[in-house]
């Protein structure tokens, strides 16, 4: 194999694929990136056996061939080369690969490309295109609620499925950690209708999010019940899906909550942040006492004191006291788009809905804390 290409092009591609490679690996080949030189250019590929990212970048191909090199080392070398430099990669005969650029020369130990694992994709049964900005929004606003609890592995990702509401099909993204739930939707792209409900693992979701650089682009999605593939410009990310069933989340979204409160989102978030300063440990409860036109936020910490703040709100229901984890309130407030947040509450032991006042595309459900 012999290829020459510009440092910036190689760095960009490596930047995309090398993140997939785990820092600590039990199997040596998984620390490596696969480089294959063909007529189309230089293809890079990295995998962790669940997730695979490939990218083809234009290059001068002196001799076709393929090999694998330690991903993080290669990335670091290319990163440190001067801007505008040309990089040449040439396979030697002793299992080494020589990287040359300007006056630098590296001999890197390679591993045979035949050992590099392939995510056997099988048939992808459904395909659609989605605007990058839409996909990014679905991910951005649900990601925070993904569970990291390993015993509930089926919550360790974003659930995507198509739901029909009033005769219109929506592509929905849902994530929950058992305490809070985020549900986003967008009109279902043609081709998505009929797709199976799938759970995309956390790591894949985060990678897709990072790979979306141009919000104007269209992203190709192909999937089956076990795999999903995203084509983002020259980058193709394929991941296994979480093999489990996502709980029937609709059952925990209350429909009868009749106590509606609207509040200026920014004022609310700042007030929650202020009063929660008094709670020394993370994740402590904030008490919300709502009555006619008034919301009183309070935190009591037996060790350090207490904090109270009053906000003017739009509320005319029966008086109610309810506690929430301050962190969770701030997370959700940070996700809302509109200036006014709408809370739909029932009682201090039942789920509360939080949403933008206008626009139902994002919905958050939060379980209270005992206070």
């Amino acid at each position, binding site marked *: 194999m012999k290829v020459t290409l510009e440092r910036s092009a190689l760095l960009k591609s490596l930047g995309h694929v090398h993140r997939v490679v785990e820092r*600590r690996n*039990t199997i040596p080949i998984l620390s490596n990136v696969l480089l294959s030189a063909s007529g189309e250019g230089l293809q890079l590929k990295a995998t962790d056996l669940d997730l695979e990212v490939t990218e083809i970048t234009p290059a001068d191909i002196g001799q076709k061939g393929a090999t694998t090199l330690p991903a993080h080392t290669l990335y670091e070398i290319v990163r440190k080369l001067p801007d505008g430099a040309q990089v040449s990669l040439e396979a030697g005969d002793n299992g080494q690969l020589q990287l040359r650029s300007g006056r630098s020369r590296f001999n890197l130990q390679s591993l045979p490309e035949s050992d590099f694992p392939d995510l056997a994709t099988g048939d992808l049964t459904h395909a659609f295109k989605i605007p990058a900005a839409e996909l990014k929004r679905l991910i951005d606003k649900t990601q925070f609620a993904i569970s990291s609890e*390993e*015993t*509930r*592995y089926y919550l360790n990702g974003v659930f995507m499925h198509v739901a029909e509401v009033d005769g219109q099909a929506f592509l929905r993204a849902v994530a*929950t950690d*058992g*305490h809070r*739930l985020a549900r986003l939707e967008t009109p279902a792209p043609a081709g998505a209708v009929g797709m199976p409900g799938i759970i995309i693992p956390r790591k894949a979701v985060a990678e897709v999010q990072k790979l979306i650089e141009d919000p104007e682009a269209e992203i190709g999605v192909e999937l089956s019940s076990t795999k999903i593939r995203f084509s983002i410009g020259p980058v193709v990310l394929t991941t296994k899906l979480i*093999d489990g069933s996502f*709980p*029937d*989340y609709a*059952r*925990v979204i209350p429909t009868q909550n009749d106590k509606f409160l609207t509040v200026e989102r920014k004022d609310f978030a700042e007030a929650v942040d202020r009063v929660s300063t008094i709670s*020394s*440990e*993370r*994740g*402590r*409860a904030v008490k919300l006492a709502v009555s006619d036109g008034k919301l009183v936020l309070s935190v009591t910490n037996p*060790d350090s004191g207490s904090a109270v703040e009053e906000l003017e709100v739009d509320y005319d229901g029966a008086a109610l006291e309810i*506690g929430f*984890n301050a962190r969770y309130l701030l997370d959700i407030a940070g996700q809302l788009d509109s200036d006014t947040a709408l809370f739909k509450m029932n009682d201090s*032991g039942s*789920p509360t809905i939080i949403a933008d006042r206008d626009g139902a595309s994002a919905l958050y*459900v939060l*379980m*209270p*804390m*005992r*206070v």
Partner: protein
Amino acid sequence: MSAPEPAASSSGEARKIRKIIHIDMDAFFASVEQRDNPDLRGKPVAVGHGRARGVVAAASYEARAFGVHSAMPSVTAQRKCPELIFTPPRFDVYRAVSLQIRKIFARHTPLIEPLSLDEAYLDLTDCLDDGETATQAAEKIRAAILAETGLTASAGVSYNKFLAKMASDQRKPNGLFVITPKQGPAFVAALPVRKFHGVGPATADKMKKLGIETGADLRACDPHVLAHHFGKAGAFYAAIARGEDHRPVKPDRERKSIGAENTFLADIFTPEAMQEKIAPIVTKVFAACERLRLFGRTVTVKVKYADFQQLTRAQTQSAPVASCDDLSHRAQNLLRPLFPSSKGVRLLGVTVSGFEEMQGEADQLGFAFPCD
């Protein structure tokens, strides 16, 4: 006649026979090393440091044939088996493999209680597929572990945790053993008490003085006498002697403390040496606290002298440990009065306990998912 008991009337439901599996990886650390390094296969291998004061963390079956076992001083191990190869532990790898195994368990049941990196209890009572037996599930799990990690595991299948644990030891390595509810009492009766999981050498000696050497002896003993001699544990011994153990498989075992300790190559005497040696231990403990998001109010230090005499000092403050510096400060305050020391100190340890987060966690309500 007493009042009717509606719950018990649907006979059998109240006392459903549980299906518990105990999975134990065979010579875990050593097997991982042999897997990753072909030169070690078929040879006596000890995971640990071979230098003075090192201990064996795990021994391969080839090494066990020479009488080498875990927790044995490296020097003793080397004497017993001159060909013994020491290989330094790679805990990151063991942790990664352990997670792989837990993922396999999770395909079968959400009720997983890990005991350590290489052992776990699984409750499959309500998770078996139609017509599948717990034994078949255990074989599937063992096969998946072998296929996906290249390592072997042994399994014990029974109707409670105690017997499942005892069973997994019966056909080690790479075996499976079942103790049915019918066989349970006879199995326990024949077992020497010192082999009971939960009976240590000290308790075994004490029992011997009372004339209790086997499960049958234990069963014959009056539970009140056991309670008198062994307190709360007495009731547990009386139950297991009958093959009974109602402890549930707890998926999220609460962590009660986080600690680390270090044995030094050369004994230390001065406050300066103490400061230097305690720093990496403190860093390690605080990193673990951060990772687990557990911040305790009690800091305990442990000192072991050259003559193996050991002491601990603990202090509880009103606020939990807030930072690495804070922990370092508290640990050093406890240690300072002990230095300079006329006796050499061979080991220092730091532990944080008294976590508060649990209370907070308990107050958070969760969604009631239909089939979770």
